[in-house]
């Protein structure tokens, strides 16, 4: 019987999932909002159903409507992609109730890991280092905690992900102001207002491990990625592997990620995020993203493994077809995220009609995008336009190819982050691999990038 997959997402990732399904011979049904009827994934999907209006709360974020659409269209699996409902335990539960295979870990695992607070607790139990912090039931208690941890602190949404829902706070006055705002933002963005705070590590690199688990309880890692080029905790560049890691730190990193996810019998794709202090050669656990990650493409580029395909197979009960020693990291890959954001206006969103879109064609380049000339980039959703991935035998060769690709890429219409991406790729700091997570904001403020 031909498998049919409901794609509960939009944009480039919907396209990526549809592509993986096509190659497996699976049928696809895409649920769209009124703003996405004309999207590229809507043209590529086997079938399209309109969920609701452009407002995500009444379309992509409506759990009941999404599952109803999957059931009504006779789907067997539901792929949530990233963002939107992807980390919601209720979605995994509702899928199970309705006889749908949720492409992701179980509801129980999502509750434990998707909730950054309980994930912290588990890491502590397993002896994995975490940053100082915790949650508080009131602003006053948050103050006490922040005093103990020491400013600056980071406020995070317990159910946030992909860097969304984080805010840096410098002093008590800022905390008083930020705490209720962050609660409200978390409530509106993630459907849960729980927030917590952690000590802010100033000079750190963001490193993360890709894991993949099957239903027999086996979990493998597919190496690490580095995502230190960030602006307001949004990743801008990602690469695999992390060239700055010591071999000892790398071993600890991989081992911690596999132990953490094995402890919960993790099924499917997941990313275990850490901060790495390269001066002290120290790692601290951040969170687990229990889903397919935006930057999965760089891991695919250096491992040769189709992550979405493996994800679709393991959730259906197929055991992993390869062992840890079969996973070999070869070469280096760097991804730049092209977004509809204006670098001249602090990366403010700039939706609009794409009047020109001419990506180059070069060996070693992969482009994951839902753009086409004439596409009206909608204002309601994430600003991601394209993921430009350049791969080469070494980091420097991958970087040079990326510079070349970004130079030749033509996009017109709304303002995009392309000029900034070009400057970053050519910068001495990025070329010299000395970038920490605070670098980009600082360099932009100084005008050095």
């Amino acid at each position, binding site marked *: 019987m031909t498998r*049919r997959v409901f794609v509960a997402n939009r944009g480039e990732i919907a396209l990526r999932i549809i592509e993986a399904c096509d190659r497996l011979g699976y*049928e696809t*049904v895409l*649920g769209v*909002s*009124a703003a996405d*009827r*004309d999207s590229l994934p*809507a*043209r590529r*999907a*086997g*079938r*399209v*159903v*309109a*969920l*609701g*209006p452009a407002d995500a709360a*009444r*379309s992509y974020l*409506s*759990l*009941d*409507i999404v*599952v*109803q*659409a999957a059931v*009504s*269209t*006779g789907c067997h699996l539901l792929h949530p992609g990233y963002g939107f409902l992807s980390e919601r335990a209720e979605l995994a539960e*509702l899928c199970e109730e309705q006889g749908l295979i949720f492409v992701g870990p179980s509801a129980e695992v999502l509750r434990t890991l998707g909730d950054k607070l309980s994930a912290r607790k588990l890491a502590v139990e397993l002896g994995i280092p975490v940053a100082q912090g915790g949650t508080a039931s009131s602003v006053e208690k948050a103050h006490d905690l922040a005093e103990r941890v020491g400013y600056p602190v980071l406020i995070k949404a317990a159910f946030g992900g992909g860097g969304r829902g984080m805010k840096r706070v410098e002093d008590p006055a800022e905390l008083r102001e930020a705490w209720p705002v962050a609660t409200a933002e978390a409530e509106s963005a993630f459907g849960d207002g729980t927030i917590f705070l952690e000590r802010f590590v100033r000079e750190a690199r963001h490193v993360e491990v890709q894991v993949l688990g099957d239903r027999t309880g086996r979990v493998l890692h597919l190496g690490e990625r580095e995502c230190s080029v960030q602006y307001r905790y949004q990743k801008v560049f990602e690469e695999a592997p992390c060239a700055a890691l010591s071999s000892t730190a790398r071993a600890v990193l991989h081992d911690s990620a596999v132990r953490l996810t094995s402890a919960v019998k993790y099924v499917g794709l997941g990313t275990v995020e850490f901060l790495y202090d390269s001066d002290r050669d120290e790692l601290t656990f951040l969170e687990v993203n229990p889903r397919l990650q935006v930057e999965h493409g760089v891991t695919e580029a250096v491992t040769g493994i189709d992550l979405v395909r493996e994800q679709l197979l393991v959730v259906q009960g197929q055991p992993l077809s390869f062992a840890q020693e079969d996973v070999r990291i070869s070469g280096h890959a760097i991804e730049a995220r092209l977004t509809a954001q204006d670098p001249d206006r602090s990366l403010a969103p700039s939706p609009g009609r794409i009047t020109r879109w001419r990506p180059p064609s070069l060996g070693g380049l992969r482009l994951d995008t839902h753009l086409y000339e004439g596409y009206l980039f909608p204002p309601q959703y994430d600003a991601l336009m394209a993921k430009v991935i350049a791969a080469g035998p070494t980091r420097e060769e991958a970087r040079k190819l990326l510079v070349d690709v970004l130079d030749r890429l033509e996009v017109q219409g709304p303002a995009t982050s392309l000029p900034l991406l070009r400057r970053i790729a050519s910068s001495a700091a990025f070329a010299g691999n000395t970038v920490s997570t605070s670098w980009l904001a600082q360099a932009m403020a100084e005008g050095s990038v």
Partner: protein
Amino acid sequence: MEIDLEEIIAILEMLERSDVTEFQLDRGDLHLNIRRRGSVATDEPAQPAPAVPTGTGGHESATPPSGSSDPVRAEPATVAAPVRPQQAESVPSPIIFELDDDEVTVTAPMLGIFYSSPKPGTAPFVSVGQHVDEQTEVGVLEVMKLFNTVRAGACGVVTRFLVGDGDTVEYGQPLMTVRAVP
């Protein structure tokens, strides 16, 4: 010229074997528009359903004149796009119908399963010929066992139901027509 039912069936069978997603035929006063389920109408981004042939007035008949006693209000064409894709599904395709100038549609506020009555076996919320105003409850949409009220959103008389009881309807899909009463 007239096209009979057999010829239409032949066209449908031919289309079923092809990759064509949308087919439009205009001959004299015959206007046939067939769209494959799941296909996205590139020319109608905002509205999913009523693929009324363009360039025809609301009072023209979309089927060969059928001896209707009222030439102004000819029977609407209800050629429900029967070209099936490879995938079987329960969401009905957009229904092709024609709207008179004084008619408006009541559309689904979300994807869901449409019911015209509060419970099985009970009287429908509204029937054809019944007067409604903006706030009149005209149906419910079931979404994961929760029932969402559909209101007419217009003042007038219900003229046609465009979907059946238990049909899964998409967001924006026309459910029924209402004729404005001055």
